């Protein structure tokens, strides 16, 4: 049996499933944090959550509102300084998965969280980089979680805040980025992965009830599909229960 669920719930559950138990995960705030805590509360009890505030192995009961909530420090295996979390933990490539959001993402999975419009005269000034550029550079792999729309899924981002595959194959190596880059982009409509040859994001899974045309309509480039396009397994009741317990306290 499947329960009724929202597209955001499908997105969060699909993201949580990507996190394998025992791995370490550098978590951005918001949807990534909710998904990571859902994973920890379901199939991955030993997932190591690392927040840029310096908390390693945090075990919050509820997803924190901010990246530096007290519960993260109180439940962590270790709390280190902010320079240390970036220099000793993120930069050397020790972290398995970086979990990022995005305001814009393009066909090569480059991420913009800085400005919409020209930098000097922005149409929308966004928060900026935070830890994302180095998370995207250094984690063994990156998962992006972002709602799919033509505003967000653009052919070319207005500003490269965090590098996915740059302008295509070989760019990460040329730039000396040692992490593997984006492995998965999870949206409220679909799951996308970079094509192994072209590095361009293609649809590998459509969520139940979503058509390819819908996904294409929400994408600012000519979206292709993987050869073995599949349907995402819908959220199980257990997953939904766990997710709603996590988010029940807050919208």
């Amino acid at each position, binding site marked *: 049996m499947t329960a009724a669920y929202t597209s955001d719930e499908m997105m969060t559950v699909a993201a949580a499933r990507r996190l394998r138990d025992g791995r370490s995960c550098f978590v951005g*705030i*918001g949807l990534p944090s909710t998904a990571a805590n859902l994973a920890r509360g379901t199939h991955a009890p030993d997932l190591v959550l690392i927040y*840029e*505030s*310096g*908390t390693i192995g945090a075990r919050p009961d509820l997803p*924190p*509102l*901010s*990246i*530096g*909530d*007290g519960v*993260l*420090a*109180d439940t962590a295996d270790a*709390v280190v*300084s*902010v*320079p240390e979390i*970036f*220099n000793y933990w*993120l*930069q050397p490539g020790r972290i398995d998965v970086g979990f990022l959001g995005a305001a814009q993402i393009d066909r090569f999975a480059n991420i913009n969280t*800085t400005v919409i419009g020209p*930098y000097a005269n*922005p149409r*929308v*000034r*966004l*928060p*900026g*980089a*935070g*830890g*994302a*550029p*180095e998370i995207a*550079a*250094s984690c063994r792999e990156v998962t992006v979680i972002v709602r799919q729309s033509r505003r967000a899924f653009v052919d070319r981002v207005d*500003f*490269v*805040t*965090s*590098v996915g595959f*740059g302008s295509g194959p070989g*760019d*990460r190596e040329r*730039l*000396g*980025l*040692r992490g593997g880059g984006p492995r998965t982009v999870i949206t409220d409509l679909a799951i996308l992965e970079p094509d192994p040859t072209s590095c361009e994001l293609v649809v590998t899974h459509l969520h139940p009830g979503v058509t390819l045309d819908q996904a294409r309509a929400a994408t600012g480039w000519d979206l292709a599909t993987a050869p073995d396009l599949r349907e995402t397994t819908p959220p199980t009741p257990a997953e939904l229960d766990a997710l709603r317990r996590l988010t029940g306290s807050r919208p």
Partner: protein
Amino acid sequence: MATVTSLADAVADLVHDGDSVALEGFTHLIPYAAGHEIIRQGRRDLTLIRMTPDLIYDQMIGMGCARRLVFSWGGNPGVGSLHRFRDAVQNRWPAPLEIEEHSHAGIANAYVAGASGLPFAVLRGYRGTDLPGHTATVRPITCPFTGEELTAVPAINPDVAVVHAQRADRRGNVQLWGITGVQKEALLAARRSLVTVEEMVEELEPRPGAIVLPGWAITHVSEVPGGSHPSYSAGYSTRDNGFYLAWDEISRSRETFTAWMEEHVLAGAEARR
């Protein structure tokens, strides 16, 4: 040896128009009271430095204290935008705001270099992003052993660093615990420093996870209970998440913002809590 003095006197002594000022505290222990005192004293043309401007710099920018902002993430954590920051960048209100924009790793390392008496720091960062094209203080540097190209950022050495901590003793030794962020680095990188604390105590009782900043490395210490609200001081208060959510509305228009600041910050001492 740090001088223990009132917040008003400490700010008057340390913060002057045109200074570069770093109020640090990563979500936790943000020195709000000190920021409000800077606003009340009417400082102008400040270069404000902070990894996450947070509401405190949104307030200082909206009140016209800043000429320039050095930062790496300018949002309302978990909520959304900083409307006063956006209004300054997009519409130059109340004044134009120059920005120098980094990543967290870049600013953290720039403070480390500042605290270490080095002119620059090296990191694996920024490469391939559009930040170096807009931020002049990001340059390539080549490893003299491997030839590999990395990134350098110049040291940050603020005129004044301000941090909030849980406790200090009479000699001005400061103790803080929980998320300690980049406060030690900011304080040691600065020419002058102010630490506001929840409580002055006779003796600092050792605590798990606590770090101690020796009084002889600090300029002034002021007792300001609740001085981190709406941020928090682990062991003394919890984060006022409701205020962070409410700020989204308060700060959305210039009028509601100004009225709130008048009532809660500019008005007499009564209203300062």
